């Protein structure tokens, strides 16, 4: 293009955008919303990408940590100069308790490492690092669980040999030293060294290894006197964090995938819809000498410029909104809040939006560019499709009132635009179904803990009591119906190590969810997760050889149970299969009508630590809700803008028809009804298509993202919940239709018809 041609093109593009300010603003709004949704979605997905690994790297997490009493310099030397160690950190550590609830709460207080320390640097998320000797930094989940805020003072009671100390909370931080409180007890805090040494005289040594998988070798090399309960292997933290976040990760992943699809749909509908409506202008441009390629270039440039402007604003809005969703997600996954402000990702999002806009402008423009100029002009003026509307015929056959027939006809005047809008609305319905499915899935898992491979209501740590005494205590607790023991142990299979669980006597009462085969009924039988079967290439009915410690034994696999942990690589059998050793936990089922909270409190009061199975799922659901509903709200906004744009285009194109209808006696309210019926017709199709598609898609995505358990735990919303979608979508349609309808109702029939 020559310079004057460029100038002429710029003038035409500017005039086109400025000539229809409302449409331009709406197109810009749609791109803005799409860009915002894209930034938020990409940020969420980025946070999902192995959240533990990201957090572990960000905090330079240790691979092995040893908490013990005072150490000699030689002992420290041996621990930190082992050949596998690449970095190490030694800090003072003390255990204290604080009277924060009715019972004293245990806290592990460590010396705060320098920000550039090589291992285990807590990442401050709220407030700041302690600067004064009487300040403390608290682990975030611990502070939140107990409702401790910045500025609050903590009176710490030292254990034997220490001095009580009062510290002021300066900030909150996240770490990968341990999983979330209260699942990982005690709570964690960091304070200046002098405050820690006042409280006690322990030491913590943490190391990073060249090969993170060589933790067992490293632990084996530690002198026997130091080996005990104070060693933390990073695998244990990872498994606890990942187990906790597994369902959430899948559900957020499903939702963000849907959001990306919706963004694509919005851009396609809005841009191609508007270009399709510009055929007359395209005819005029050709009439004054623009080549078909010139027409395409002009329109693409025009919309790309608009996309650039609206997209930049969308990036700003997305960066501002994302933390609202990222924060709860990070809390859910127990990771530092990822930043939405990542220039490379933002630039990529902008490029994606502009490219999508350019493509969806180019496709209809090239179609319109190929049209004969006279046809384009004629089409633009009258926009009369050649035949009578099938949609109108169908509406007439259904004996709908005249206004409804007209609305249905108008909504389907441009078939491609109607399809795209139905597509965008369907995406909205799918998202709503996905949100409801998420609720249904959580409800299912809460109601049936077997779906989390936890077929018990409460799990109890016997603590210092022996197995037999603890079991007696639990069984005698009013409200407890059945109780038995559960042991976790490592077993060796022909294809490497796996985890196993052994259930004590009375296991028949604790029925795992077994979709294939049956539950084990006697010693020597076992059920296993999908991962276990896949790893061994085994099938139900196979007898397999296992080794636990020095014991060799065989079990017959009689069923596949739903196993969310360890990728399903877990086998479960009755404890009587082998001579088990080691301290077990206790599991109990409550009598119908018993209050789980009350039973847990009573057991705690009797010196046992009791954890309710449903409580953790409830917490997880409460944490995930803002993320899922936030992204769903964003998708509803996307669909709303989409429908609004479509109806505006339709009413603008049908302005002449509305003029005619007014001339033959359609009232302004009738005009509103016509537009509303058009929106409702599109909405109804979206409902009919979206509800089954949503159920199927959610199921497929859950299965795809979590082959080991997705298909087994997925829930389907009930008919009443699904029925609620209908009024919701119709309300959204009515809301989207109200603006264009009012415009059409106000327009003067004389003016419209005179323009002919």
């Amino acid at each position, binding site marked *: 293009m020559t310079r004057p041609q460029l100038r002429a093109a710029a003038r035409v593009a500017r005039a086109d955008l400025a000539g229809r300010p409302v449409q331009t603003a709406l197109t810009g709004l749609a791109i803005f919303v799409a860009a915002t949704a894209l930034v938020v979605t990409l940020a969420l997905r980025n946070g999902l990408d192995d959240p533990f690994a990201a957090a572990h790297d960000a905090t330079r997490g240790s691979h092995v940590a040893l908490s013990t009493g005072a150490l000699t310099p030689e002992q420290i030397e041996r621990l930190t100069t082992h050949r596998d160690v690449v970095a190490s950190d030694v800090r003072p550590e003390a255990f204290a308790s604080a009277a924060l609830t009715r019972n004293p709460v245990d806290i592990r207080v460590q010396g705060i490492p320098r920000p550039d320390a090589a291992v285990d640097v807590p990442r401050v998320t709220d407030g700041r690092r302690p600067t004064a000797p009487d300040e403390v930094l608290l682990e975030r989940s611990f502070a939140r669980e107990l409702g401790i805020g910045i500025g609050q003072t903590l009176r710490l009671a030292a254990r034997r040999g220490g001095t009580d100390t009062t510290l002021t909370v300066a900030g909150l931080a996240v770490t990968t030293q341990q999983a979330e409180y209260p699942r990982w007890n005690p709570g964690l805090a960091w304070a200046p060294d002098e405050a820690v040494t006042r409280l006690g005289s322990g030491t913590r040594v943490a190391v990073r290894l060249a090969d993170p998988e060589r933790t067992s070798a490293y632990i084996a090399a530690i002198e026997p006197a130091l080996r005990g309960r104070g060693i933390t292997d990073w695998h244990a933290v990872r498994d606890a964090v990942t187990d906790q976040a597994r369902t959430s990760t899948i559900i957020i992943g499903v939702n963000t995938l849907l959001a990306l699809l919706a963004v694509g749909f919005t851009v396609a509908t809005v841009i191609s819809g508007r270009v399709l409506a510009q055929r007359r202008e395209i005819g005029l441009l050709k009439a004054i000498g623009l080549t078909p390629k010139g027409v395409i270039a002009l329109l693409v440039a025009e919309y790309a410029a608009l996309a650039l402007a609206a997209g930049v604003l969308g990036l700003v809005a997305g960066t501002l909104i994302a933390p609202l969703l990222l924060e709860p997600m990070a809390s859910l996954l127990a990771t530092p809040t990822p930043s939405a402000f990542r220039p490379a990702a933002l630039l990529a999002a902008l490029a994606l939006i502009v490219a999508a806009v350019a493509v969806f402008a180019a496709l209809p423009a090239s179609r319109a560019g190929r049209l004969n100029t006279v046809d384009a002009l004629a089409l633009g003026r009258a926009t009369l499709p050649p035949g009578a509307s099938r949609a109108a*015929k169908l509406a007439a056959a259904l004996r709908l009132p005249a206004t409804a027939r007209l609305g249905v*006809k108008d909504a389907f005047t441009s078939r491609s635009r109607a399809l795209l809008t139905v597509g965008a609305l369907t995406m909205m319905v799918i998202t709503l179904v996905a949100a409801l499915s998420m609720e249904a899935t959580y409800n299912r898992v809460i109601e049936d803990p077997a779906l989390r491979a936890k077929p018990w209501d409460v799990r109890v740590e016997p603590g210092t009591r022996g197995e037999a005494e603890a079991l007696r205590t639990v069984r005698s607790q009013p409200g407890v119906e059945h109780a038995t023991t559960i042991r976790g142990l490592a077993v060796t299979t022909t294809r490497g190590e796996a985890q196993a669980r052994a259930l004590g006597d009375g296991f028949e009462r604790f029925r795992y969810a077994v979709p294939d085969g049956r539950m084990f009924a006697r010693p020597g039988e076992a059920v296993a997760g999908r991962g276990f079967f896949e790893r061994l290439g085994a099938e139900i009915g196979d007898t397999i050889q296992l080794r636990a410690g020095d014991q060799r034994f065989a079990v017959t696999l009689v069923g596949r149970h739903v196993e969310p942990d360890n990728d399903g690589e877990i086998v479960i059998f009755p404890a009587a299969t082998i001579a088990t050793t080691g301290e077990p936990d206790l599991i109990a089922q409550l009598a119908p009508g018993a209050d789980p909270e009350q039973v847990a409190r009573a057991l705690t009061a009797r010196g046992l630590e009791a954890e309710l199975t449903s409580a953790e799922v409830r917490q997880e659901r409460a944490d995930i809700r803002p993320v899922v509903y936030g992204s769903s709200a964003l998708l509803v906004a996307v669909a709303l803008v989409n429908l609004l744009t479509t109806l505006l285009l339709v009413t603008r194109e049908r302005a002449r028809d509305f003029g*005619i209808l007014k*001339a033959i006696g*359609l*009232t*302004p309210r009738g005009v509103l009804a016509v537009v509303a019926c058009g929106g409702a017709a599109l909405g109804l199709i979206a409902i009919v298509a979206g509800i089954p598609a949503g159920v199927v898609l959610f199921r497929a995505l859950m299965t795809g993202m979590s082959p080991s358990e997705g298909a087994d735990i997925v829930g389907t919303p009930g008919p009443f919940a699904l029925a609620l979608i209908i009024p919701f979508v119709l309300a959204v349609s009515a809301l989207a239709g109200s603006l264009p309808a009012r415009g059409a109702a106000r327009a003067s029939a004389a003016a419209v018809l005179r323009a002919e």
Partner: protein
Amino acid sequence: MVIVARGLTREYEGGVKALRSVDLEVPDGEFVAVTGPSGCGKSTLLNLLGGLDRPTAGEIELGGRRVDAFSEAKWAHVRRREIGFVFQFFNLIGNLSVADNVELPALLAGVSAKEARTRRAELLETLGIAEHADQSPTRLSGGQQQRVAIARALINRPRVLLADEPTGNLDSASARDVMRLLRTMHDERGQTIVLVTHDARVAARADRVVTMRDGRIADETRLDAGRGDIAATVSRLMQLGV
């Protein structure tokens, strides 16, 4: 009188006066042609009489009641039952069939579907386009489309038919057919018609010709028999400057 307009004025934004204090009376059953050069205000007058536009000043009575201050919704109800419109560009809805186009005003007026169907069939038969009922109007010739528009305008048996250049977009044979139809409707059914045209041959079919210039009525001519010697009437109108 079916229509009485007094001091009708329409001033557009920017101070352009399309109509300047026009007085007009149309008795029941009269066929009035409003004629004059482009921009003289004849279409504006017709739009005001049909409630498609609002006067800046003046009064309109329809069947003895003041309608100029009616809300848009009230006007819509008046148009449904008492006024039929025919436009130069037919203004049919392209993606509705001929039958649907014609039945639409009846359905909007609350006439039963069966009755609307009967009336439509009758009208299309009378107008000679019954065989096109199921077609899209876009497939018809200009003359046929205008007949569909006339059928649509008459389906609710309005007191007044307002026609804005109904032959302006037709070839001369089709224009003659359309005018013959309108005249028949007037003669046989006593249909009151107000027709805007700048064509003297079309105006010659009316009972009375109102000539407008610069937003005012400049002249009124009563034609005794447009049906008789058309050529003589046309030449008379030409002499009057129509």
